[in-house]
């Protein structure tokens, strides 16, 4: 595959630009001679047409939610309605300058205020911040709030965060960056928090627990009320990672289950494009004791007017410039308005139905280590496939069938994990087709294992040497020697 540097440079017209009509100065007189390049940068000289064709060719190699099922467990890669995009392109939103006077941004502030109200009602918690720009950023904010809460109470000795081994991988990182140490709580044989293990760890050094709800096995903590009660009794706080909210939105509220902090992945649950690094929105809702500590500015309503409130002396300050990723909030708001309450309940109903349908069908072909009703996702194991076929081989073979593979080798508590989240937007036909492909691949593993060991065979690139890439990464473009 070519990069832009591999095309032959050709002379392209720069006569398109008019003569400069302002006084010019020699770069060295402005910058100082030592900062002026002695030779031209090595930027390929290509025509607009060359560049457009290059990127169009690359885009044809892409696979996204507009192409087909994207069952990447833990990621909620569902179809995103195009009406969201229309809303985000309304020029009053898209062209709004973040420093414009609030009197000229009433519609935008109103949207943030109303979205906040919806998130409060969905979570059952009294206050919300839309400032974090990713799920993990919401986690980090949550951990800062824990820290400030205990400082304010004179309990700075609470330095430990308890983390089930079925939590999202970002949770321990967020806790550590906020200055906590992490204690892992093992899962029991049902795939949920082992209450005895939890009781053993609870003491006056514990700041709280971070629960992924439902957890990365797609299983809901059936003892969640007991877990949060125990943590609260020990003086700790409860963080719920809400990345999997599509499995219970409209049906259960974190606030009713004892959550003190709950983060939304607006970009997952409320359908804005994500993957590849953003932009995201990790809104955070909190319980009453934490409200004062939320970031500034906050959107408040006085009479019919919205304004930004910076005067919150107990706030931890800002954790991102301005108001977060505003246009992600616009898309999320458009999505919620399209669906309404009933539609949101249908989201969780279909997410859970689709996952259980696929799980029941596939568990006769692949091992299912935790065989019980799941929520929005489930974890199969490639262990026991014949002819030394691994989960990685299965994933690569899926690419040959034109399907995006699921998450593999996570969570770590399942050997050879294949973590499948079909999402609520797939119909039965797409689910059946995906299951058929996985069944075909299992047959191939027995009859033609070389098809799996060599996969992918039909992709633009064959099996990549990821070990070599990690051990000896080449991070720069190797320019040919210049004459």
């Amino acid at each position: 595959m070519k990069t832009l540097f591999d095309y032959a440079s050709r002379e392209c017209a720069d006569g398109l630009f008019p003569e400069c009509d302002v006084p010019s100065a020699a770069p060295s007189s402005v910058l100082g001679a030592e900062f002026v390049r002695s030779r031209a940068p090595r930027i390929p000289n290509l025509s607009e047409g060359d560049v457009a064709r290059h990127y169009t060719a690359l885009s044809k190699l892409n696979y996204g939610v507009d192409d087909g099922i994207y069952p990447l467990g833990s990621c909620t890669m569902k179809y995103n309605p195009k009406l969201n995009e229309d809303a985000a392109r309304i020029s009053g939103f898209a062209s709004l300058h973040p420093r414009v006077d609030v009197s000229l941004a009433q519609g935008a502030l109103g949207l943030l205020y109303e979205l906040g109200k919806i998130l409060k009602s969905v979570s059952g918690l009294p206050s919300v911040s839309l400032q974090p720009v990713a799920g993990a950023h919401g986690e980090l904010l949550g951990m800062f709030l824990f820290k400030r809460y205990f400082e304010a109470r004179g309990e700075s000795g609470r330095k430990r965060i308890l983390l089930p081994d079925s939590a999202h991988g970002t949770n321990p990182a967020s806790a550590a960056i906020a200055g906590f140490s992490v204690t892992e709580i093992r899962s029991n044989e049902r795939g949920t928090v082992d209450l005895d293990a939890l009781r053993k760890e609870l003491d006056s050094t514990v700041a709280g627990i971070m629960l992924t709800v439902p957890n990365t096995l797609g299983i809901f903590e059936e003892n969640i009320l007991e877990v949060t009660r125990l943590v609260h009794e020990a003086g700790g706080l409860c963080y719920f990672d809400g990345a999997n909210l599509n499995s219970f939105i409209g049906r259960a509220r974190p606030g009713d289950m004892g959550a003190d902090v709950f983060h939304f992945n607006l970009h997952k649950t409320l359908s804005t494009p994500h993957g590849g690094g953003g932009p995201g929105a990790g809104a955070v809702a909190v319980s009453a004791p934490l409200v004062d500590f939320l970031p500034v500015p906050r959107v408040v309503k006085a009479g019919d007017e919205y304004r930004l409130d910076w005067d919150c002396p107990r706030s931890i300050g800002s954790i991102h410039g301005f108001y977060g990723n505003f246009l992600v909030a616009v898309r999320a708001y458009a999505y919620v308005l399209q669906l309404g309450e009933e539609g949101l309940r249908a989201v969780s109903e279909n997410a859970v139905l689709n996952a259980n349908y696929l799980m029941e069908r596939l568990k006769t072909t692949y091992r299912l280590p935790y065989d019980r009703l799941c929520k929005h996702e489930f974890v199969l194991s490639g262990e026991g496939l014949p002819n030394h076929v691994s989960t990685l081989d299965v994933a690569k073979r899926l690419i040959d069938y034109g399907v995006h593979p699921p998450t593999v080798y996570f969570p770590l508590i399942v050997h050879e994990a294949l973590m499948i989240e079909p999402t609520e937007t797939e119909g039965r036909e797409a689910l059946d087709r995906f299951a058929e492909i996985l069944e075909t691949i299992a047959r191939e593993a027995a009859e033609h294992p070389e098809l799996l060991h060599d996969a992918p065979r039909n992709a633009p690139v064959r099996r990549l040497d990821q070990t070599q890439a990690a051990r000896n990464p080449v991070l720069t473009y190797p320019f040919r020697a210049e004459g």
Partner: protein
Amino acid sequence: MAYPTTFRYTKDHEWVEIEGKRARIGITDHAQAELGDVVFVELPSVGAVVKKGGQLGTVESVKAVSDVFAPVGGKVVEVNKELETSPETVNQSPHADGWLAVIEMSDPADANDLMDAAAYQALIG
């Protein structure tokens, strides 16, 4: 691969070879096989003091990043610098050239609850 009978083992899949106060530590053959190709090893600093069960380093493979826990407490007196440029040694020779660090034990009793080779082999099945 055989598990040396002169080593002691942890349930987290570290091995330790004790000679006097010196404890040489590595990860087991089972651990390296589970992790897959190791691409990076983070070692402790020489002179660092670690508690038994505390974090000694991390081993990163193409599949996962795993903590290595100290089977015994004490001061780190030697680390295997070779692994910084040749992490694959952990895969190729987990029980010998792929060792991670040597700890000077502060309490010899730390080794008492570690498994012998037979018990460890029973654990991994």
